[in-house]
């Protein structure tokens, strides 16, 4: 046995001894008695008197009681015994005051629960590692162009430029292109659209992602003629192939072509997710299939941006800034070396293609970070309020127990021991609160899918892992120490002589201490901040959902995209003519029309345009261009402001007419009649061609976002689309229309999938989902904070009324009215709330500035919000104080004077 195991053995024996409360001291007493007796015998034998022998024996022993004490300390673990004693005592006192214990535990539980819940989100979204090697070194490469009034992160370098950058750069370890696509996956006759991507051979190496089965797409696969292979996601492997390993001998039918399965990716790899590419295909939530990206020789030298997404991995030690300046240098040379084709649409702006290197994590998490920061700030405030509450409850308890504590001090309890006792109690509350909090966080995570706005990456992966639990325990410890140290410190300062003189009676006129008041004021201030923040978000949300979108929200829409059986233009025309005609013929349908880019569906087409007679187009004027079928406007409820809608006649005659929205009319035809004006969107080498005549002006429609003003918009009559959204306005309920739509489409072509059947109201709801998410969470936290603060205020008032019973009795005996007593308490509470309100509003003034980016249509110092917060706080505060105040007013003077 080594000396370590010997020490462990001793420790375990002492531990066992301490945990068992039973003491077997009598055996040692017996041993000690034998010792003394033997020593005495020896003394007597040496000629001492019996009493002298006994005296010497005890002297030599060093005192029987001291030996016993030393033996006790060695037998068990003293600190553990003290702790257990404290715990037992703490649990007993908490049981004896269940109201106090429950309130404290609920308070702390709410605070910890809020913290844990939000941290589980932060953990899933920001902290947990992504399945892409080191994501901090992944970047996107964009070529913004100041002439295009679109976000800088939309276009990536054209393939020609891409290959030159790849050859010349020293910043990137590897680079890759992908093109998002939606395949029709035929699964035993069931056709569904699957988010997919065409990727080059560098895609998987750049992301440092390896398949869990089979192989990734390699250099041979991207050669023409070899491209009919596919890598599939883990989820698709499980759902379609039952997770069987023979999947590598199987194939998939994508858009009526056979693709051999060559690999299966690991479970969490479904890149790109919808949230990874803010300007990607909005209908792709995650990617399930990857196929080779095959480029023709002509494509490989094309300098105009295509629909590719360029992703690269920085070499170790290379910063984004270095890469950015290198790419800018290369681009600057390329645009000179390869001037644009003046005939093409964007050729004339060739010189202005720039370079932008953006971090992968900034792209997907960029917009989410401030939101999570806001939520974390909110829950920290909630936790602090909970701490304040718990501290106040403990202070009240300590004051009520002043007599007990004083007595224990008088009987010789050490100060450290007393502090430890009080801290143990608050740790017990913290532990119980931690358990409550974890349960609350779990419930929140169960509720989360219903709140998920769909555009926060990996939100649905939030769970209670060890990091989250660690935070919960940390929050509990923090709360316990914060709440427990204050009363413990005060109790330890208890002056014994003063206690004995005052006979346990309290001093101070309000019945509670300045520390207690200070806590209430601080809590109120924090609640005011949270309420103001929530109020501003609510006001913004109401403004957002009540903006004039420009269309009717009851219109039902669906998406249909044609596959390669519809290659010829006349086939596409025939298809959409047939669809709209059949839908329009349905009973109950008012109007049905198709459009290639539906508002709020996160897809966009921007065209350059030119007004006849306005001179050359220097500024590259732009408009959102749409193809529509005749009854689209009636179906969407977009009002006609001047002129006429498009008619069937315009389509058959190919009349060259167009509709503009109000914005175009306002910008270009101020005080002029736009009807009859001629606009071209077709630029050729020798100038603008194919002018279209404006025949009508329609209302503005919010397209990209509810929160942005409508852009200039132009509509052309055209049935020729390879995919479109169809809008149906009817007198029937949406569910009935949806069924009609499905059966109609099945009647025309059973192999085409109809997706996204939803009302325009649903699209609005989707577009405002994140705002709803942040607003409801922050409102919930503000609500919790308010309740906590009111509980605290109520508790303090009840406590001081209790302590002042005698004083109130004297006042009433001396002639005070019940109303005076009521007012006395209310004034006290009002003072605290008022002070908190003032402090809170001062904080609001500073703090809400950081919220500016979250607001829509309200100023950060919105007077209405401030007023509402003030009223709410005062009313709630007075209500919380009313119950104790009435109790004070109902005190019977004679009885009150008799107590104590």
């Amino acid at each position: 046995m080594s000396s370590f195991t010997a020490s462990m053995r001793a420790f375990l024996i002492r531990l066992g001894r301490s945990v068992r409360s039973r003491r077997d001291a009598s055996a040692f007493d017996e041993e000690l008695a034998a010792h003394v007796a033997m020593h005495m015998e020896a003394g007597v034998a040496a000629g001492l008197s019996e009493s002298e022998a006994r005296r010497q024996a005890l002297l030599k022993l060093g005192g029987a009681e001291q030996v016993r004490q030393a033996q006790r300390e060695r037998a068990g673990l003293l600190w553990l015994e003290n702790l257990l004693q404290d715990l037992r005592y703490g649990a007993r006192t908490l049981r004896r005051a269940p109201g106090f214990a429950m309130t404290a535990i609920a308070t702390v539980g709410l605070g910890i629960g809020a913290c844990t819940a939000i941290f589980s989100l932060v953990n899933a979204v920001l902290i947990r590692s992504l399945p892409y090697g080191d994501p901090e070194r992944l970047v996107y490469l964009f070529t913004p162009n100041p002439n295009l009034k679109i976000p800088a992160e939309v276009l990536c370098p054209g393939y020609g430029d891409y290959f030159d950058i790849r050859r010349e750069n020293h910043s990137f370890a590897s680079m890759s292109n992908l093109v998002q696509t939606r395949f029709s996956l035929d699964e035993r006759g069931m056709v569904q659209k699957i988010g997919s991507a065409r990727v080059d051979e560098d895609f998987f190496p750049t992301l440092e992602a390896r398949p869990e089965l089979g192989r990734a797409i390699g250099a041979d696969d991207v050669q023409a003629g070899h491209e009919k292979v596919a890598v599939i996601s883990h989820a698709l492997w499980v759902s379609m192939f039952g997770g069987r390993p023979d999947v590598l001998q199987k194939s998939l039918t994508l858009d009526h072509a056979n693709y051999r399965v060559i690999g299966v990716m690991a479970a969490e790899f479904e890149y790109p997710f919808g949230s990874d590419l803010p300007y990607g295909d909005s209908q792709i939530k995650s990617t399930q299939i990857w196929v080779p990206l095959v480029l023709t020789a002509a494509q490989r030298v094309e300098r105009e941006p295509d629909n590719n997404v360029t992703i690269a991995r920085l070499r170790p030690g290379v910063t984004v800034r270095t890469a950015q300046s290198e790419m800018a240098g290369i681009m600057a040379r390329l645009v000179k070396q390869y001037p644009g084709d003046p005939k093409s649409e964007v050729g004339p702006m060739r010189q202005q293609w720039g370079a932008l290197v953006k971090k992968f994590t900034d792209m997907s998490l960029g917009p989410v970070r401030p939101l999570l920061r806001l939520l974390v700030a909110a829950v920290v405030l909630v936790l602090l309020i909970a701490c304040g509450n718990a501290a106040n409850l403990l202070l009240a308890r300590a004051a009520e127990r002043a007599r007990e504590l004083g007595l224990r001090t008088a009987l010789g309890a050490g100060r450290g021991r007393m502090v430890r006792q009080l801290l143990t109690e608050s740790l017990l509350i913290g532990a119980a609160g931690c358990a409550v909090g974890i349960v609350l966080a779990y419930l929140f995570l169960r509720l989360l899918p219903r709140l998920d706005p769909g555009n926060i990456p990996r939100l649905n992966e939030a769970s209670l892992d060890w990091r989250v639990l660690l935070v919960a325990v940390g929050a509990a410890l923090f709360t316990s120490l914060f709440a427990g140290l204050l009363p413990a410190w005060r109790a330890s300062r208890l002056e014994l002589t003063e206690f004995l003189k005052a006979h346990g009676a309290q001093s101070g006129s309000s019945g509670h201490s300045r520390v207690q008041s200070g806590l209430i004021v601080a809590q109120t201030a924090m609640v005011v901040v949270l309420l103001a923040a929530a109020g501003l978000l609510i006001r913004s949300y109401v403004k957002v959902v009540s903006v004039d979108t420009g269309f009717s929200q009851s219109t039902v829409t669906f998406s249909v995209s044609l596959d390669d059986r519809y290659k010829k233009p006349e086939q596409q025309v025939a298809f959409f003519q047939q669809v709209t005609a059949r839908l329009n013929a349905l009973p109950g349908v008012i109007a049905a029309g198709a459009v290639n880019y539906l508002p709020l569906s996160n897809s966009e087409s921007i065209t350059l345009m030119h007004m006849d007679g306005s001179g050359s187009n220097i500024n590259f004027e732009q408009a959102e261009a749409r193809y529509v079928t005749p009854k689209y406007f009636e179906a969407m409820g977009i009002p006609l402001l001047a002129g006429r809608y498009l008619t069937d006649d315009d389509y058959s005659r190919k009349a060259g007419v167009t509709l503009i929205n109000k914005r175009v009319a306002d910008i270009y035809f101020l005080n002029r009649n736009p009807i009859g004006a001629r606009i071209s969107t077709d630029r050729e080498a020798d100038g603008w061609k194919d002018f279209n005549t404006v025949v009508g002006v329609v209302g503005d429609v919010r397209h990209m976002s509810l929160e942005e003003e409508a852009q200039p918009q132009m509509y052309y009559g055209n049935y020729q689309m390879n995919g479109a959204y169809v809008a149906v306005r009817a007198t029937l309920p949406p569910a009935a229309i949806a069924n009609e739509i499905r059966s109609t489409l099945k009647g025309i072509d059973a192999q085409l999938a109809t997706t996204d059947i939803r009302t325009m109201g649903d699209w609005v709801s989707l577009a405002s989902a994140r705002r709803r998410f942040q607003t409801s969470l922050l409102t919930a936290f503000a609500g919790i904070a308010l309740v906590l603060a009111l509980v605290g205020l109520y508790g303090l008032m009840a406590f001081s009324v209790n302590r002042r019973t005698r004083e109130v009795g004297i006042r009433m005996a001396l002639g005070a009215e019940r109303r005076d007593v009521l007012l006395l308490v209310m004034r006290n509470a009002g003072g605290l709330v008022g002070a908190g309100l003032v402090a809170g509003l001062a904080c609001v003034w500073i703090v809400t500035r950081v919220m500016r980016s979250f607001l829509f249509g309200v100023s950060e110092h919105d007077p209405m919000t401030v007023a509402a917060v003030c009223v709410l706080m005062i009313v709630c505060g007075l209500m919380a104080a009313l119950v104790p105040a009435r109790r004070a007013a109902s005190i019977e003077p004679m009885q009150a004077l008799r107590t104590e």
Partner: protein
Amino acid sequence: MGDKTDVWQGTLALMILKTLETMGPQHGYGLARRIEQTSGDLLQLNYGTLYPALLKLEQEGYVRSEWGVSDNNRKAKFYELTKAGQKQIRRATADWEQTTEILSRFLTPAEEA
């Protein structure tokens, strides 16, 4: 050093073990007397300090105890060395010898060099 000295913490355990080894099973009082005698009465030993030390050794598994009867027919608790205790004596003795040897090099004037 003519004065009686307090038992140096830690050496007591080795003294107890060593005494038990030479004397065989012994009760607390007997052990205390024997240790005092062996030290040539140089040690100022509070007999009471023996008992926590014995308890510690027992917890560590170096000694075990049993109730028995003393020479003059008195019921007393007897302590006895265990196998682990014997090993511990060897280990502690080696440690102790090394310590004193090192120390003596500092205290006695160097002969070589």
